[in-house]
């Protein structure tokens, strides 16, 4: 009798666990309450590139392709695509049953307009890619991009940042002053409903979305909460379901991650791949000497920065290309924390310690984006002081910082940059000697110039052969890291913190910047 009961019990519990292991059916409906901070100046795709703007615009507008975690392209508004063997022609076949939020059909005209006119005009980064292409309509649902030279990064350039905008509403207008910017019309799974300034942005479900049965959610509210501690409380108290990137201080993320109903993921930023570094003005001594730059790399404790300044939400950066990139080269010169080595390099350079122990005094322009960055600057000052370099911290605010950095008015400047999904898009711009454009931010501000590096970057961009590109990028990384072109600190990891009731938040490399068509909220 007992054995029978026991067997029954075993069978019963096995059945239960089997049942729970099955995929749960998504719940339809509900309102996703998400944080958003700071309030973006606008949410029109292509024109507003701030992180909070992107979080919203990507729900309303869609790109031709999406990219999985390994950055492999997947069909989206483009059903299929073909790359000619010579790498100079890309043909996209577009999906047919897609409608704009105002009911008009999505066609090749919209794609041609977006890449041929709109983005070239408004998007400072993307235009650099599509100025090389000529886009033309083959028929209502086929589009072709022609290039004079093959361009390796092109295949990874059809995701975030290149969402299609409606030609019938924007063609021939002043894009920046178009009234539709205030109530954007896209093809995405969510439509714009309302923006109550200082309070929330409200999106509702697109009932005519081309993916049948999606989205699961009825609406999304992006709540604007100015105070960091309140944002943490909002997530903790389950009033809000989702926070990402800079919404929460990393100290709070740590604490929240321990709660049973909160999940944290660091995936979903593969397309951005942000890296933090200290750029030194190569036009001035002692920064022109690579030994000084190397000394800086040896003097700072990267582990401390990762663990204490960034609360563990970072990876030590070893070079210019993000470790998640297919082109990442791990076999480069390693800069372990070695103040003694830093000191010997400085001695070798002729920067001896003076009577007061100081070799030289330099200035550091820190990034004024919050307390975490202030601590990073303060730590750097301390670390360099230990090896005899006196650092004067220069205060600034966002406007002052960007002015000084882009006008080369700095000795050392610290910041982070999204290196994007391809080195030719996000990395070369900082290091190529012909990209020194005074007055323009995120170009080569430091004046670093190595003709071999230039050549490697140019060759790597000019081919679509991945294997060849990998070899070229390996070589360029080895050279740049050896010369300490800049002092790389960490790769930023932006945690997405969400309530476990929320499912399918981060399903590909666009992470929380995905369109949330498959996201659902359990009751």
């Amino acid at each position, binding site marked *: 009798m007992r054995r029978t009961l026991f067997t029954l019990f075993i069978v019963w519990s096995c059945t239960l666990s089997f049942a729970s292991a099955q995929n749960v059916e998504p719940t339809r409906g509900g309102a996703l309450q998400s944080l958003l901070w700071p309030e973006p100046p606008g949410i029109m795709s292509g024109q507003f590139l701030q992180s909070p703007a992107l979080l919203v615009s990507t729900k309303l507008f869609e790109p031709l392709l999406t990219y999985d975690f390994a950055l492999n392209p997947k069909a989206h508004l483009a059903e299929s695509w073909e790359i000619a063997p010579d790498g100079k022609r890309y043909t996209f076949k577009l999906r047919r049953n897609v409608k704009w939020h105002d009911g008009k059909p999505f066609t090749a005209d919209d794609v041609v307009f977006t890449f041929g006119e709109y983005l070239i005009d408004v998007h*400072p980064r993307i235009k650099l890619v599509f100025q090389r292409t000529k886009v033309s309509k083959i028929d209502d649902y086929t589009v072709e991009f022609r290039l004079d030279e093959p361009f390796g990064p092109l295949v990874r350039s059809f995701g975030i940042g290149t969402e299609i905008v409606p030609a019938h509403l924007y063609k021939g207008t002043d894009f920046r002053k178009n009234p539709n910017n205030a109530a954007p019309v896209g093809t995405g799974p969510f439509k714009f409903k309302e923006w109550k300034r200082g309070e929330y942005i409200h999106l509702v479900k697109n009932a005519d979305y081309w993916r049948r049965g999606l989205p699961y959610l009825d609406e999304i509210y992006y709540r604007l*909460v*100015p105070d960091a501690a309140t944002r943490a409380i909002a997530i903790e108290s389950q009033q809000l379901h989702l926070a990402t990137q800079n919404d929460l201080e990393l100290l709070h993320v740590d604490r929240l991650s321990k709660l049973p109903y909160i999940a944290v993921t660091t995936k979903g930023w593969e397309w951005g791949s942000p890296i933090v570094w200290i750029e030194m003005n190569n036009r001035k001594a002692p920064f022109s000497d690579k030994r000084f730059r190397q000394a800086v790399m040896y003097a700072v404790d990267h582990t401390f920065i990762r663990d204490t300044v960034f609360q563990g939400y970072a990876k030590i950066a070893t070079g210019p290309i993000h470790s998640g990139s297919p082109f990442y080269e791990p076999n480069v010169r390693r800069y372990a924390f070695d103040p003694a080595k830093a000191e010997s390099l400085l001695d070798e350079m002729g920067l001896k310690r003076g009577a007061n122990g100081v070799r030289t005094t330099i200035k550091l322009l820190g990034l004024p984006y919050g307390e975490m960055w202030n601590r990073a600057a303060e730590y750097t000052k301390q670390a360099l002081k230990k090896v005899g370099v006196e650092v004067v911290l220069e205060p600034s*605010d966002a406007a*002052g910082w*960007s002015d000084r950095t882009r006008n080369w008015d700095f000795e050392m400047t610290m910041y982070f940059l999204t290196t994007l999904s391809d080195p030719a898009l996000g990395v070369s711009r900082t290091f190529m000697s012909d990209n020194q454009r005074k007055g323009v931010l995120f170009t080569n501000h430091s004046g670093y110039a190595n003709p071999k590096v230039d050549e490697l970057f140019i060759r790597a961009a000019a081919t679509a052969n991945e294997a060849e590109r990998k070899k070229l990028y390996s070589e360029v990384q080895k050279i740049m890291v050896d010369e300490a072109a800049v002092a790389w600190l960490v790769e930023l990891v932006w945690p997405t913190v969400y309530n476990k009731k929320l499912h399918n938040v981060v399903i590909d490399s666009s992470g929380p910047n995905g369109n949330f068509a498959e996201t659902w909220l359990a009751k």
Partner: protein
Amino acid sequence: MRFVAALLAWLPRAFLMLAAIGLLNFALIRMAPGDPAAVLAGESGASDEQFIAAIHRDYGLDRPLREQVFTYLRRLAVLDLGMSYRTQRPVASVIFERVPATLLLTVPALLLAIIVGTSLGTLAATRAGTWKDTLITSMAMLFYATPVFWVGLLLILLFSVSLEVLPPFGMASFIKKTGMPGVLDVLQHLIMPVLSLALFYMAVYVRVARAATIEVLGRGFVRTAYAKGLSSRQTLRRHVLRNAVLPSVTLAGLQVGQLMGGAVIIESVFAWPGIGRLAFDALMQRDYNVILGVFFVSSAMVVVANLLTDIVLRLIDPRIGRN
């Protein structure tokens, strides 16, 4: 009649004052390093010459400075505060959306400070030298010396973090309630910010009222009143209060400008959506028109407040106008 004439004479002077303030601030803000286009570029992780040029064009920043000044003054003359660079909305809407929040904070704080402060001050003066006086003056000194932002933080630590009886930040729960629960919600959020702001100014009024009352009590006519046989209370009310309140009222007019400063701090500590914080953020973003707009609006409020205190003073003591 003389009163109306005085008012009419006051108007152009006030307006000239505001124009001068506008001009000064216009000049100063332009001296701040950086420009709004740069801020937008920095936040976007992307920039190029056309991007910056387009923004300059949109905001009229590419026009020569003289022209920009004239445009600004011309607009100011018709009370057009221009457009906010950041949100591309009229500055007037941006500001007036948030003025109620600041008024909700500063007016009760000022009233609380004046009423409680003056009462305690006069009380202390009449009991000068006793333990009551010492207690009141010590408390006043304590609150005078405490930084406003620290009081706010301490109150939050006590009432929100430890005791968990009051909400720590904001003007209302972010999922808004309507009707009566909504009003109560706001009132609950209002307690700590108002208290933090009021305590310092209360201390000021205690000290001023106490000093003024002591001075008045020492004056000849009070002794005469006593001699005439008027009771202590009647004397207090009729003569002392009126004369003691005069400095408080004068002070109130001057303090409206200072209250804005207190508002900036309290609004930062409590994430209160008012114009103080708006001005600070706009400065960081180099949203010139918004900062200028806030300066203009607050200066206008100060000017009006001074006029009102002038009127109140004349009402309290008709001798003032006659001098």
